[in-house]
Structures are given as C-alpha cells and as structure tokens.
C-alpha cells in the first residue's frame, strides 16, 4: 500500500501494523474488510436505538461495532464503543448518550480516511 494512504489510515486512529498482523500479513484481505467497513450497519443501528431509548438494541449494536473496530484495530473507535457497550450492558442509557457524540466524530473521520483509499 502507498505510504500516504497508510498514513491517512493511521491518522484516523487505525493501527495498520497491528491489523496487518491479525491478517497474517495478508494486505489484500485486510483492505477488503477495511473497505467493507463503511457498509457495516451497526453504527446506524446504534444511533437509531439510542434515539428510541432502546437499551438492549443499542447494546447489541455497540457490542458488534466494538468487535469490528477491534478486529480492524480502529483503536479510538474500539475504545469508545467498548465504553458505551459497558454502560449499556448495565442499562445506563444516559451515560452512554453522553459518550455518543465523541464516537460519532471518530466514526466520521475513520470513514473519510477509508473512503479516500
């Protein structure tokens, strides 16, 4: 991959080296799933469920989003999604809602970096 693109991804908080390691150095496979990330519905599902005040649906979406972010080593998103998942696991909707704007911001910048590839 070109160095500039790698840097873009790294600036958006993606630990490309760790992610590449998880794919055993298979760059094509890593890219395939990175490029698929914008179509992952769990971010949208999370926002919808939070809007509707549905803690259990929000928990399921946050949990899955956390898993994907973790597997692709999208570090800040993984951290934020984990925190929100923990809040929602114990039903703390307000606490989760407070953390949501930061997550949305991170998500947008990750999307930008990926779409620029």
């Amino acid at each position, binding site marked *: 991959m070109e160095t500039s693109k790698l840097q873009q991804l790294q600036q958006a908080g993606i630990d490309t080296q760790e992610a590449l390691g998880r794919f055993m150095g298979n760059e094509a496979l890593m890219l395939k799933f990175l490029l698929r990330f914008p179509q992952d519905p769990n971010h949208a599902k999370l926002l919808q469920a939070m809007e509707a005040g549905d803690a259990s649906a929000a928990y399921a979406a946050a*949990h899955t989003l956390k898993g994907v972010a*973790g*597997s692709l080593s999208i570090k800040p998103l993984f951290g934020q999604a984990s925190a929100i998942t923990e809040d929602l696991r114990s039903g703390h909707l307000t606490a989760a809602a407070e953390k949501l704007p930061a997550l949305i911001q991170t998500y947008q910048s990750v999307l930008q970096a990926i779409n620029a590839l």
Partner: protein
Amino acid sequence: MHIDQETILIVDDDALNRAILENLFSTAYAIAEAEDGDEGIDKILALGDSLCAVLLDVVMPRMNGIEVLRRMKSLGLTDRIPFFLITASPDDDIVHQAYKLGVMDVISKPVVPYVVQRRVDSVMELFRARRELSAEVIRQQNQLLQQTKQLAQMSVGMVEALATAIEFRSDESGAHVRRIRDITCHLLRTTPLGAELTKEQIDLIGLASITHDVGKISISDAILNKPGRLTAEEFELMKTHTVKGAELLSQIPQMRNHSAYQYAYDIAMHHHERWDGRGYPHGLKGNETPIWTQIVALADVYDALVSKRCYKDAFQPSDAMDMIQRGQCGAFNPELLHHFKQAESTLIQFYTPTGGDNK
C-alpha cells in the same frame, strides 16, 4: 504438524471474524465455517471425528455459543473434540459457564494471532496425544486378553495330558477326556438338562469333567491294566479312585480356588453313583447326584464302550447306545437316557477318524 483431513470449524456470525481465523489456520488445517449456532451443530455432527477443534463465538443469532456447548456436552462431544470460546466480552459468568460445559480455553477478541495459534495448537496436541494413548491402551489390552487366552488353553492342555496319563498310564492322546467334555457340554447346552446353568457354568463343568478319574493315580498298575475281570478284592481297591480323586483335588490350593473346583470335586467323587442307589462310594439315589455328574458318568460309560481298552474290544456306537438304553451298563436317569438317545447323531460326530482313539 499438518495432518491430512484435520478440520477446524469456525462458528461466528461475523464474516470479518471468520476471515481472520480462517486466514490464521488455513495453511495447516482444512477449515469449515458456520454462521450461527444451529448451523454449527449441523456441521459438528456431519464432520464428526475429522474435526480437530471448534472455535465458537458467544453472541450469535438463532443459537448462542453457550447453548451450542451445552448440546455438545450432552452428546459427550466436548470430551472428544476441543472447543474454544472466542469472545469479545469475556465476563466472568459466561467464562465460568463455558468451562463447566467443557470448553478447553476462552480466547478474547480482537484476537492476537500468535496467542490464538499457540493456545489452539497446544490443546489440539493434547487431544491428539490422548487419542494415540487410548489407542495404545486398547492395543495392549487386546494383547493381554490374547495372552490370557493362550495361558488358559495351555492349562487345559496340561490338565488333559495329566488326566490321560493318570487314567491309562500310557502315552495316549487326551481324546478320551476331550470327548467326555464335549459330550457333557453338548448335552448341557442343547437339551433341557442344562436349562438352569449359564454358559460360563457349563464351560466350567466341561473343564471339571476332565479330572473325573484323577484318583486312578493311586491305583496300582496291576489292577489298572489287568486284562481280565477284577477279583472282588481288586474291585474294592479300584472303587477307591473316586474318593481318592476328590481328596487329591481338594489338596491342590490352586484347584480349590478355581471356579471349576466345586464341579470337579463332585464329579471325581460321584461319577460312579447309580440312579438306583447301587453305585459307589456313597450310594446316592436319583437326583441326589447332581445332573452334571450324572451326565459325565454316562459319557464315561459310553466312551469306554466304543473305545478299545486293555480288557475289551471297541463296540459299534449303535450297539453301545442299545446296551446303555437296555440298562446293561448301569442304571441311569430316564430323562437323561432320553436326551442322550436324541443326541446320538451328534455324539457319533465326536468319534471321527481324526479325533478319536477308538481303533
């Protein structure tokens, strides 16, 4: 490390997770995938023993990983195939449950390739070693059984040879005692006479019949091999071989502890009793003599008639049967005589030219 046809099954609803694990193991193993617990169970049952590991996600639609484990444990499969739980949220409750259901390891997501590989590999190695060990144990067990059988056969051969040597003081084969054994076992197995005995008991009685005349070791050659009729005095001495035989058996500790002993003792003691109570040594009447001893006594008489002995020539089997049925050679249980007559065609087969000593 790679062994042909060993398959790792990955059960996860997320394509990304499956791709990462597949990419991790596909160089060394065949990979199968399932997208939920239901499909996972179908694949586990279909792949059976070709599976070397199952990597299981917890949160899945249709059926979760814990439920999959519960079903696999109830089928005993968690003992045969190593299961791994791969989970993004390893909370204590789930981990505890999973271990109780027989999971071998709980690995957290996002996975670290080196760690997953090492942990999965070492558990698979353990299962492989366990399988090889149990195969080896089965092999050795079979070998031991084989050796035990050979030893038992040798013991019977020794007893036959010894019994024959004692009975005839000659180097005849053990055919006489073998035929008595065969006739006794045949009647007990195939007629109502043996209805109350198990297969094992009948085998023991057969074994015990071999030593019926062991007491003849105490009878002198002059009497034992006398060509003509015995005098009254000589006959009294000859009769003691029953009591002497039983005593001899009771003096061998290994014999006393053998499960055939009670039969052997009774057969040696009472195989010259008669149905009418005029036999020896105790003058037992009717079924006071156990049925198996009555059978051995009858087989002994029959075999003596159709064989050549120092004091007589061999009779034709049909003549021998007639003499016995007419009561010319002792008094026997009428029911026993009936079944003996019925079995005549089979009995004759025990006297084939290859197996008999009835020259």
